[in-house]
């Protein structure tokens, strides 16, 4: 090979990850910045928005969405979808609350039971999706209904109340001045980021989502990858479920309705392709922040909740549209 062209391109020593992150997420970062600046200066919100209490408030409110969105990012990169997460929130919440209110189990055990219930549904989703060719949309549509139904059957349709300070710790408590759900959220985000960017499993997720057939040829255990991701989604939804139940002093069969859609919105606003194979957790974090800050701002401005939905939808469309324009010109 010596006689033929041998251009030794110089080695890029390493990529500047920070710069890449900025470039990839420029559109939504600007959107988030504009939103924050607006809320800090608008007369209706300027006094309250930047207070540390409100900031923690926002973070606490987005914590459950962030948990699910983390998992949803992986599910969507895999080329699938998980519609059952919202219902899992309800089911794991009512089971955890029921364990305390009905069977007098210790609170720690009850919370664990809630998380396990969520994980179990994830296991079921993962099992069916990885061993059959039934589309994830259908499988999780079914488990969405099943889990919601079970939550209603178990509670008879009304909330299961738990009135105790300890119970409220996970969702409403503080460590120092930081709300517990925020701590859980940070741990989940870091764990997901590590899983996606630093492990072999992470690469395999991108590979399976990008081209499942190629992944088989590459010796990747496609079914293991799918199974793992859906179990992770169940786990995250289970944790979100107990956080919510704790914060509301009750397991509610209607909790988490539409939560899957908020998570999908965060993921899509964050630039992950619904076609699978590409996307980043960093984008999802910003996406969840945008939606959270927006919700908060609209509340502070006392916008009627019906209009809030309209505004939220418009912002999602706008964010995705900016992305589309940028990709077109790239």
């Amino acid at each position: 090979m010596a006689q033929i062209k041998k251009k030794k391109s110089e080695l890029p020593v390493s990529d500047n990850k920070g710069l890449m992150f900025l470039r990839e997420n420029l559109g939504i970062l600007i959107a988030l910045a504009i939103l924050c600046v607006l809320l800090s200066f608008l007369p209706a919100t300027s006094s309250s928005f930047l207070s540390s209490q409100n900031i923690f408030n926002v973070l606490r409110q987005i914590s459950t969405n962030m948990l699910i969105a983390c998992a949803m990012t992986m599910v969507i990169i895999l080329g699938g979808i998980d519609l059952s997460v919202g219902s899992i929130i309800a089911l794991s919440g009512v089971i955890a609350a029921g364990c305390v209110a009905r069977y007098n189990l210790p609170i720690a055990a009850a919370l664990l039971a809630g998380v396990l219930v969520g994980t179990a549904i994830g296991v079921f989703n993962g099992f069916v999706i990885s061993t059959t060719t039934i589309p994830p949309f259908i499988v999780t549509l079914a488990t969405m209904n099943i889990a919601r139904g079970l939550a209603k059957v178990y509670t008879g349709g009304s909330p299961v109340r738990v009135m105790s300070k300890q119970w409220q710790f996970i969702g409403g408590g503080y460590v120092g001045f930081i709300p517990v759900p925020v701590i859980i959220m940070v741990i989940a985000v870091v764990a997901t980021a590590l899983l996606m960017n630093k492990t072999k499993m992470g690469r395999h997720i991108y590979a399976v989502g990008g081209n499942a057939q190629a992944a088989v040829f590459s010796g990747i255990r496609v079914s293991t990858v799918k199974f793992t991701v859906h179990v992770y989604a169940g786990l995250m939804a289970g944790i979100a479920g107990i956080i919510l139940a704790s914060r509301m002093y009750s397991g509610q069969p209607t909790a988490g309705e539409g939560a899957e859609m908020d998570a999908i919105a965060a993921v899509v606003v964050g630039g992950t392709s619904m076609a699978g194979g590409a996307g980043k957790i960093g984008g999802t974090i910003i996406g969840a922040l945008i939606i959270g800050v927006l919700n908060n701002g609209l509340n502070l401005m006392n916008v009627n909740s019906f209009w809030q939905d309209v505004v939220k939808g418009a912002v999602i469309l706008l964010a995705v549209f900016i992305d589309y324009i940028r990709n077109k010109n790239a």
Partner: protein
Amino acid sequence: MSKKILLEMHHVHKRFAGVHALNDVSFELREGEVHALLGENGAGKSTLIKVLGGIYQADEGEIHIDGNKVEIKGVEDAKKNGVAIIHQELVLVSHMTVAENIFLGREFGKGVLVNRRKMNEEAQKLLDEHQVHIRADVLVGKLTIAQQQMVEIVKAISQNSKILVMDEPTSSIADKEVEFLFETMRELTKRGVGIIYISHKMSELEQICDRVTVMRDGMYVGTEVVKNTTKDKLIAMMVGRALENYYTRDYHEPGEEVLRCEHISDGNMVKDVSFHLKKGEIIGFAGLVGAGRSETMKAIFGLTKDVSGEIMINGGKVKVTSPVEAMKHGLALVPEDRKQEGLYKVQSVRFNMTIEVLEQFIKGISVDDKKEIELTQKYIDMMSTKTPTQMQKIGNLSGGNQQKVIIGRWLATNPNVLILDEPTRGVDIGAKSEIYVIMNELVKKGVSIIMVSSELPEIINMSDRVYVMAEGRVTGCLNHDEVTQEAVMLLAAH
């Protein structure tokens, strides 16, 4: 040559982020001629075609058709101006039927209703006319790549265009089909159609082309009349210097037996195939397309279910039921259809290069970035891959450079037994000879290679032994000193 000029492209420029893909390229096509476009992988051939076809817009330059300046802003404009293109990447819709694909965008029927029966009939007529033995009502996804390629060809021809462009149409079809294709091309040129023909197979030039334009690094190098030029001259124009020693192979006494397959059948295409491979040996698998060679390789690599027969590795019997196990035993398979079976299109060159060797730089949750970059660069250089950076999306590389990345991926696994299915398909002549050099180096180091190829010259010049297959069976094995084109063809036609 005084025939009317159909198409002129003047001083065309096209830039992508970091790449000047077309740098002042001019091109001319006359009525009734086949004009070849030649150049290394990434030279800009497909880009030029995509500018003509309205997929990309040129940054600068003009296009004249029939002497009039035209603006081609989209695929519609190209069609209106009588341009039909067979793209390098197949663009058929796999869950639609052959007929629906052929008439996509120009369906039969009144108003919004499609006349399915008429469409099927017309499509079948077209297919039969071109001796393509496929039914018009089957789903395209069920066809082999060769068959899909034929459908693309029929589709483009049926548009009755004045200007027909074919971007590597023969890279995946069999000799017999190539014959028919050339036959059809001659018919078309008699009717005055001008054809732009892109191929990396130099032998096809003499057979079918009148003139040839050579490109290098996005620039126009020159145009020659095929009759008045030589292969060596064209190669020199392409790579910028003469290319000696096309095939590199130092024969030596092979070592112990590393792989033996006995009575392999897959209950379908592969019937009772037996062969063996020694350390440091290259064995070739020759035969016609559809002879079951690729299927045999898939069977021993664990990609097919219900394989019967015995596989012995280093003398010990093993069971291989998945690629994971095959790789554990030191096997690697570079698949034939690298687009479908190898490419992670939306991911970077680096991701694509290292996906099979992650354990070399990922331990738990710690990634050794530097090692990954070095590894990627090593194989980019080894295969002379043209890419602006390692982080370029592989989908943005030229077709041949994508192939190089995927071949590099499997080389990186340091296999004991490397199975190469059509290793030089779609790669340029310089890179082909580099692949031969690499194969030669590998066997010197003790790696054993199985090469499936439809290019007889490379089979003949690179193999220690050649197995020939026909209709799923091995019909013979020829030693290096007894293998000739005739001998192989005789066995292949069994």
